[in-house]
């Protein structure tokens, strides 16, 4: 089980995977906007998307879990 946290404070633009998708380490899984720059959030480990916990449009920071991988 691995959490995908927001790498920095910003606005979550989109979650680019669905529950059940299989992802590999360093695959892009979400897009964040910080300082008017769009930044891809990459999977920290291999796994399957178990739950998506944050919604697009939300303001997030490193304490926020965007999704969990199993």
């Amino acid at each position, binding site marked *: 089980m691995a959490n995908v946290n927001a790498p*920095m404070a910003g606005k979550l633009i989109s979650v680019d995977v669905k529950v059940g998708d299989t992802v590999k380490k360093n695959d892009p899984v979400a897009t964040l906007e910080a300082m008017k720059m769009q930044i891809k959030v990459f999977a920290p480990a291999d796994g399957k998307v178990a739950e998506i916990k944050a919604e697009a449009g939300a303001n997030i920071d490193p304490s926020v879990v965007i999704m969990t991988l199993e």
Partner: protein
Amino acid sequence: MAVITNNDFLYNVFGGFTHFTWQSAVMILIGCILIYLGAAKDYEPLLLVPIGFGCILANLPLTELIHVPRDGYVFNHSIQEALGEAGLMPFVEGARVVNEGILDVLYNAGIANELFPCLLFIGIGAMTDFGPLLQNPRVMLLGGAGQFGIFLTLMLALAIGYEKLEAICIAIIGACDGPTSIFITSMFNPALLGPISVAAYSYMSLVPLIQPPVMKLCTTKKEREFIMSYEMLTPVTQRTKILFPIVVTIVTLLIAPSGGALMGTLMFGNFLRECGAVGRLVQAAENEIANITTLFLGLTVGATMTGEVFLTAKTLGIFALGFIAICGDTAFGVFGAKLMNLFSKQKINPLIGASGISAFPMSARVAQKVGNEANPQNYLLMHAMGVNTSGQIGSVLTASVMIAIIGALQTMGVDLTI
């Protein structure tokens, strides 16, 4: 009675064509290229579009829109007209008495007295969030390291044979800061305003292309992969953010009082933003004032780009040295970060050192991009933002110190025009 020939008549009626020179054609082409780069390629469009148009206007013959900052002109104001009628004009031998063009008015209103760059600084201050810098204040040292390119270029320019004041104006391109470059140049060598400001803004827009190769050249892959955690950043209170511009103003102006116009306006704009009581003024500073000033500044600076000033070997030298200045800033910033790592327990990714220039927020974005390419788990943006904002303060402070030193030398009677 003078005989008017057909040739004289045609020469005067079609003056726009008959006075058109190859220099006019080249400069109009340069103006069109600047407009193309700004409008079609999105390179600093807010500046390059008005600069390009100003350049076209100034190089169309007989428009008489601008005469300054060149010598040899006296404006035909009413008092001067009276003196002229009394046979006392012009005061300067050989000077032409001309009517003040609209771009002369703008030049004298905002460039000759350095007002426009300062108004722009109020807007920049209002737009800048110094939060990332305050969360990790030690990176302020990198904002200083990033200014070394200025001094390297200064020495190079002097070695090549530029006059001392010219060399200072060229070196300040290394600050990667348009308003500061314009401020310094209009103060010390207005004739170079066109080439220096175009070089400064062109290189600012090319930061995403110029910096990455230098950054990669100065670091190993292992260094670029180093992950900086966000836990090292300590939250800052609003009170700290409010006090910051006041403290910076007092401290920096005690160090370099002659930088008051630059630092004072930058920090005033930031204080408006952080104090939270003057939302309308913040909005005016970052929108209306910044936009109007940018428009007039760009148009007027572009209009100083006349063929006789721009189409010289000096301009080529300015562009070459400006390029060296920005590469030097990037390299010194990266090595500054490495040096910091030697003496610090908490290591940093040396890439963020490259953001110690004033090109905000492009340079921080470049650090994020290069770091992320090396290691997708690496998110350097906010760390680089701290360095980038300190680079803004650093470039203004460096300019202020230069003004102070030049002022002191001039007071001592040192001739800086050689």
